[in-house]
């Protein structure tokens, strides 16, 4: 680090480049991304979960054909796809924080986080394909 750069203390010169300072590219630009996305997805999930719980509870004990037709209707299928996509995103983000808090060492937390993210993609796509099949083929 050059002695010409401004520093916070005499012992700790800034690691940020002067250009980065001018552009205000601090960590805050993406540092709150994970936190913010958990809030955005939670707000989106509120009406979706209400719709899903009421929809499923009111179809309790219904025969196969009736449920398959209900999920396959265009409006319901779109809401189901949104619920699946946003729901798995929220789940992956939530579990990531739990893993980061409780799993040591860092290497294991990283592996567990990647496995969770992979599982969410596989299960999410499985669910989405199933809804599309009910909507298109049914």
């Amino acid at each position, binding site marked *: 680090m050059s002695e010409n750069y401004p520093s916070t*203390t*005499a*012992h*700790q010169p800034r690691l940020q480049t002067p250009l980065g300072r001018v552009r205000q590219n601090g960590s805050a630009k993406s540092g709150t991304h994970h936190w913010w996305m958990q*809030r955005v997805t*939670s*707000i989106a*999930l*509120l009406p979706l*979960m209400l719709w899903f*719980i*009421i929809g499923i*509870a*009111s*179809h*309790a*004990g*219904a025969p*196969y*054909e009736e*449920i*398959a037709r209900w*999920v396959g209707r265009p409006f319901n299928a779109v809401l*189901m796809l949104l619920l699946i996509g946003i*729901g*798995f995103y929220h*789940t992956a983000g*939530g*579990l990531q924080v*739990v893993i980061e808090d409780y799993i*040591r*060492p*860092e*290497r294991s937390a990283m592996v567990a986080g990647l496995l969770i993210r992979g599982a969410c993609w596989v*299960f999410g796509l*499985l*669910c989405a*394909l*199933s*809804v599309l*099949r*009910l909507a298109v083929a049914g």
Partner: protein
Amino acid sequence: MAENHHDAREATMVGRRTDGTLVRRPLSPHLQVYDMLQMTSATSIMHRITGSAWSVGLVFFVWWIVALASGPAAYANVQWFMGSFIGVILLFGLSAAIWYHTLAGVRHLYWDAGYGYDIPTTYRTGWAVIIGTGVLTVLTWVVVAIAWAS
């Protein structure tokens, strides 16, 4: 600090005093020092537990929707399990977990907006979450029972 060299997150626990000398930052109070039956800590840990429970419950959601797309034979297995004693207990637990996580989530959004941090309000919203979970879970199963009977 040498014993923690394998974990990069430990780097954030090390700071400097104004004179430049190294200092190990104090850790915030941990699980051991909290009374876990206090409203504040109990509702917090329950939010995490119900969120994790919902993650496990998602596996049953996947089974349900994949079986529905696969056909009546595969769906009959799901119907058999969900109608069994263990299946109903599981669904009841999941519905309570979902309602708790939803209501506690709204409480968190309320906090995020900057409201309700004083102790009396924290206790009021905490009780609202707990009682709301009970009421909405029972209400959900009333709807299930009516749909089942008709």
